[in-house]
């Protein structure tokens, strides 16, 4: 059988996306917002600083941080309606009746939404080139940062898709997706802060002797993103919490990143797995049992 790498959902949704005026307008607004943040931060922070490498790092950090929050905000909105809107439009049954497997439907929806986010990320590349002009940041660092941003896009997309298969209404699915992402972002921050205040130990400090972070912070996407920027990019990339990783040994930082990335990947894959199962009408327990009983097969 011939291997087919194309996905009809991706082809169709991209076609529809790219021919509406909404797409270039959204892109324009996004880039204008980025430019606004970039210019505002640059003019504020450059006062009193004459070093061009710091300016480069500043531009880079501003871009990366804004993009991080944009992805966290729009990721769920792109996928939370992926399946539920098909259900609302009464097109889901027609989709399931085709020869596309539930896995192909879910991956198609995920790739479509991620492609849109990838487009947003890639469209800012010219801004990053300004950072390269000033120096202080390498293309490799930018690539790593973008890779982490795509991981965030994948995770938020998976969360949105999961709830899209669980709830019939897109509104409910969107709210639940944002609740979970808020829980991951702010909930883990609060839990970490509680742990820090309860134990009164040294955290994120060379005085601690080693990297000692509250457990909840390992699961926080922003801490992961900051670790990537703070450790891999150059140790002093500016961000809201980049300073906490200064002074820790590189392998400890890398371990922190690995745990964070592994957690996000495991959660995302698990949510996609459940989404695929929920989309398959023949996968529900009772149904499968009935089918086996009729064929004389033994339940496994």
């Amino acid at each position, binding site marked *: 059988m011939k291997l087919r790498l194309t996905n009809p959902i991706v082809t169709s949704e991209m076609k529809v996306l790219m021919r509406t005026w909404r797409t270039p307008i959204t892109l324009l607004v996004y880039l204008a917002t980025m430019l606004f943040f970039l210019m505002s931060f640059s003019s504020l922070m450059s006062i009193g600083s004459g070093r061009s490498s710091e300016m480069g790092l500043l531009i880079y950090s501003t871009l990366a941080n804004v993009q991080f929050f944009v992805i966290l905000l729009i990721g769920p909105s792109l996928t939370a309606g992926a399946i539920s809107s098909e259900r609302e439009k009464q097109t889901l*049954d027609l989709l399931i009746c085709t020869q596309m497997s539930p896995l192909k439907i879910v991956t198609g929806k995920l790739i479509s939404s991620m492609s849109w986010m990838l487009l947003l990320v890639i469209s800012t590349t010219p801004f990053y080139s300004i950072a390269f002009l000033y120096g202080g940041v390498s293309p490799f660092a930018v690539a790593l940062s973008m890779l982490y941003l795509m991981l965030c896009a994948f995770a938020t997309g998976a969360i949105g898709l999961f709830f899209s298969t669980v709830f019939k209404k897109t509104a409910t699915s969107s709210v639940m997706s944002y609740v979970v992402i808020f829980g991951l972002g702010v909930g883990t921050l609060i839990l970490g802060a509680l742990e820090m205040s309860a134990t009164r130990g040294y955290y994120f400090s060379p005085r601690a002797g080693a990297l000692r972070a509250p457990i909840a912070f390992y699961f926080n996407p922003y801490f992961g993103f900051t670790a990537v920027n703070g450790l891999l990019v150059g140790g002093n990339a500016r961000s809201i919490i980049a300073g906490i990783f200064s002074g820790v040994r590189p392998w400890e930082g890398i371990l922190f990143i690995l745990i964070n990335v592994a957690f996000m990947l495991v959660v995302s894959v698990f949510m996609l797995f459940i989404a695929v199962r929920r989309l398959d*009408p023949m996968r529900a327990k*009772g*149904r499968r049992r009935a089918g086996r009983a009729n064929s004389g097969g033994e339940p496994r």
Partner: protein
Amino acid sequence: MPLLETVRLTKYYGSFPALVDLNISVEEGEIYGFVGPNGAGKTTSMKIMATLMGASSGDVLIDGESVLQKPARARRLIGYMPDFFGVYDNLKVSEYLDFYADACNVPKAGRRTLADELLTLVNLSDKRECYVDTLSRGMKQRLCLARSLIHDPRLLILDEPASGMDPQARAEMKSILKALKGQGKTILISSHILAELSEICDRFAIISRGQLMAAGSIEEISGALGINPRLCFRFLSETDFENATAILRTHPETGPLTRDGDILEAVFDGTDQSAAAIIRHLSAAGVNIVSAYKTAKSLEQVFLEVVSK
């Protein structure tokens, strides 16, 4: 071997039995009508057949293989049109069909020709480059029928394909279904418009409260239920009505008589020659006949009698 067969198909929604031990079989090449009142279990049965729902027990066999065990295989053999469906409004008609052709693994090389053929079949050739949201409801239903045919399925499962259509659109749908039968397609169709269903279907299954009440051709179902063809008369006056009643009551070829307004119905299972002889006999006796006709039970009458039992 039937192309479609349900074997003691049962479906419970919680504790509510939507289908109980449903057994029907549809032979290749026939149009099979699926009839029942609202909530009888037609859509549930069709959804199970179309791999959109599991069964509580029992099975559906398509070409001898279980739909529940091999849904992917079943989807290759089935074209399904649900009673309520949506379309992707922001796609053109040609793109809509191309999307489903791609989703059904139809090779890219032949897709355009195939779409053109299907659009011709459903009389939408001139709408090829129109956006789907500009189509009327009837056109969307015909487009959905074309979609269900995109992978050349052997069996079509059509749930109320003509619902909400105007008479002209229904007539067009009827002729399309006849054309599909001519192409050798097997069609399972449910509809509430029984008169039109009886014109195109070879056999029927009548279900009520999730149970099969009767199956077969109208004649077979009528025969099984003891419903015979009738000879119907309308007379010039009430006196003619009474005289004819007296004559037909003792006639050896007519059965019990019933009155329906000014129509006298006599159970009659004879030939056309016998019917003509009875009419001549009544005329000779001085009965003024305005009209006389021999009628089999209509699907609607059979349906009402079956469901009321």
